[in-house]
């Protein structure tokens, strides 16, 4: 009997010497249940599963890695205090990304001062590429990020969720409460718009 089976059965008789790796195959709802029973490994597994993508996603809204980490911590604390009652599709992802988005937008709104992010912190140098190629890549990347910011908000949200949060279109649709086809269409349109914007910028 695996740990997930024990959790699914609602039993608290867990062996003491568990590790996060034992929980990795458990579903999100099982992990939430174990977290509610005071099991630290439940929340640790959830953190391990989602933290990096949540931080990358939040960073696009708050424009700062440190603030994104703060947002991520708040999201997990919110999960601990008030976990979602039901998980659509059994995945915690849509709930987490929805909360992250709301908190990040709220934090950006409340921010009273501008935080200047050093680009060197965000893009560590790659020794294999030449400085000229690096500069060009960095410029292109910054340009594309700026172009994404120019997209209509409904397209931008889909791009962030698909590219930064690495969600499937099904999860994107659940996070934004839109049909899956609409999410896919918005992504198509966003890519087309980005190409057009880049072309017009290059001229």
């Amino acid at each position: 009997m695996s740990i997930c089976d024990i959790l699914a059965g609602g039993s608290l008789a867990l062996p003491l010497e568990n590790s996060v790796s034992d929980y990795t195959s458990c579903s999100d709802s099982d992990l939430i249940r174990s977290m509610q029973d005071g099991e630290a490994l439940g929340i640790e597994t959830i953190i391990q599963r989602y933290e990096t993508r949540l931080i990358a996603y939040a960073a696009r809204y708050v424009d700062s890695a440190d603030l994104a980490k703060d947002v991520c911590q708040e999201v997990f604390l919110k999960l601990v205090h008030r976990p979602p009652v039901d998980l659509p599709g059994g995945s915690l992802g849509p709930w987490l990304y929805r909360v992250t988005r709301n908190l990040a937008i709220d934090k950006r709104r409340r921010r009273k001062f501008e935080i200047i992010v050093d680009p060197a912190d965000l893009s560590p140098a790659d020794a294999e590429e030449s400085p000229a190629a690096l500069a060009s890549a960095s410029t292109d990347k910054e340009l594309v990020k700026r172009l994404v910011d120019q997209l209509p908000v409904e397209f931008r949200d889909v791009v962030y969720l698909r590219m930064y949060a690495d969600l499937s279109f099904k999860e994107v649709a659940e996070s934004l409460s839109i049909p899956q086809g609409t999410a896919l269409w918005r992504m198509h349109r966003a890519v087309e718009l980005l190409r057009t914007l880049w072309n017009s910028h290059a001229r």
Partner: protein
Amino acid sequence: MPVKCEHYRQGALVFGLRSPQGALWRRHSSGCPSCAREVRVLELLQEDAVEQRQHLPQRARREIVQVVECPPLDAVRPRRGWAHGAWGVFWRAAALVVLLAVVFAVQPFAWRRPGDAVARQGDGSALPFAEEFQVGADGGRYVASASAVVMESPVLSWSQLRAAQGSEVSAGLHGLRRSVERQRQSLERLIDRELNGVW
């Protein structure tokens, strides 16, 4: 944009740039400048996303785990038994009964007509305008407020008006004008008295 390009793009978007469908799109993009630009856009976004993926600081992680292991006191709720549930039902029912009792007790006062509150004195001389003022705590001598004066009903009702002939209508209008004038004069007198402080 040709349908073929959209088809390749769709596969890459759904399954990812690193998937076989993504590889197909890349191969196609070598001969299609539009697709090449789109592939480049997505690659740059993906690179940026990978760079932004960082871990939570250990301190933050510890704080979260600590909350799970030792929830704050206000989050700990005692187990509630059947007595607590019964009490929840009981106090609601009791509150409803008290509310209904209060409503029935207050009802006769609430339904009293405005005319009932007008002061009625035997001779009427002690209280001038007693019919137009509600009596206050001191018998209306010093504190008085305007009562709900019942306005005179129209001289002619709608059915009467339909049945009436021309002369009757003009007579009715004449009577109505006089009545309005009378009320206006009465109000002016009241205002004069109030302004002069004659009570």
